[in-house]
């Protein structure tokens, strides 16, 4: 399993691996929004939590179809499925590698982009915390969508449509945590829901994704 994680991370940072694509997309979005809605501070800081979360979610979506599609094209997925590694474990590891190369950089750089959007100071710790709690669920649900669409040519469109509704609960509670942080309210309830969604996703989705992969490999 460690070998698979290391291989995926190595592939992501080598030429053509797409590392940084999501981060740059996130940066572009958060830079353009102030130009679009105007630099008036009050308005920006009101929509900042939502924009940051929507941006993180879209950035995550951008690289999902690579999770399994490349391995399917070059035949490694067939070989992984016949390897001693359980397919559920392989799914979990590939989702983890996706999170480490897209989710984690977003978590780290989100506070910097919060400055661009006039996010109130009190909300920064909660922004980082909510993204750190929520983005693993985005990667894992994305792996499920990628597993369903793995054999399809240009499956990216279908993948986005399939995964978007699954992302909605994470988005609602994640953005709510940051919003409450910004206005100084108690964020415990949405934070607990966010953590609950992520934990349930991490526990259940590997099995669903592995089952979808098995069907698609036939």
């Amino acid at each position, binding site marked *: 399993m460690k*070998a698979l994680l290391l291989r995926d991370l*190595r592939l992501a940072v*080598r*030429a053509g691996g797409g590392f940084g694509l999501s981060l740059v997309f996130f940066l572009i979005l958060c830079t353009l929004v102030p130009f679009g809605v105007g630099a008036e501070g009050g308005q920006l800081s009101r929509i900042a939590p939502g924009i940051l979360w929507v941006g993180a979610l879209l950035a995550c979506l951008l690289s999902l179809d690579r999770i399994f599609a490349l391995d399917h*094209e*070059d*035949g490694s997925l067939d070989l992984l499925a016949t*390897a001693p590694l359980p397919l559920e474990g392989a799914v979990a590891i590939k989702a983890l590698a996706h999170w480490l190369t897209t989710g984690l950089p977003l978590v780290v750089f989100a506070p910097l982009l919060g400055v661009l959007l006039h996010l109130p100071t009190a909300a920064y710790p909660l922004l980082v915390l909510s993204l750190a709690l929520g983005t693993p669920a985005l990667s894992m649900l994305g792996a499920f969508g990628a597993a369903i669409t793995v054999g399809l040519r240009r499956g990216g469109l279908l993948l986005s449509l399939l995964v978007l509704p699954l992302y909605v609960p994470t988005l609602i509670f994640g953005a709510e945590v940051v919003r409450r942080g910004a206005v100084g309210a108690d964020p415990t309830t949405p934070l607990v829901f966010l953590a609950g969604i992520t934990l349930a996703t991490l526990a259940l989705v590997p099995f669903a994704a592995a089952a979808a992969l098995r069907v698609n490999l036939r």
Partner: protein
Amino acid sequence: MSLISVRGLAVARGGLRVIEGLDFELGAGQAIVLRGPNGAGKTTLLRCLAGLQPAVTGQIECPPDSIAYAGHADGLKPALTVTENLEFWSAVFGGPDIAPALAAMNLTDLAARPAHALSAGQKRRLGLARLMVTGRPVWLLDEPTVSLDQGSVALFATMLRDHLAQGGAALIATHIDLGLPEAQVLDLAPYRARPGLRQDRPAGFNEAFA
């Protein structure tokens, strides 16, 4: 002792049966060459034995974790070097040394080269070297000699013979002569599925929705 034994096997491709009533046994040290025209079901049979798709009916018996499958695609990552590609598969299969595998397929000089810079035949040699690091006794090989030159086919035959001598077994779908006189030939033509009513002989789960 037989490493893999198949009784009354039927396999389907795209919702239609292609092979029916297949029986064979493969013991330690034996090799079987699968013959049959295009579309006879050679690949489907190998994928079914590898566990990638379910059989329609019949029994397949083999010890757990005994099968290594090599399909049309080599499963190589173009951005990784030859060594890195092979080390990854070695780690997945429990970490045997990769040096003998590199030597067996004459890849030692290419070890530091990224896989995207290899020729088609060199890629195939790397794909075949992967079999040696799996440490598994039964090799299922789908057209292993595609894009290999004569010298490389001989290298591959040597590797295969060593594998058989160590108590391994191999099932090979191929159209060319591998230079393995001891291998038995299994012609799939007699097992070709008869045309007939699909309702009588369903091809599998998908038929429930037909």
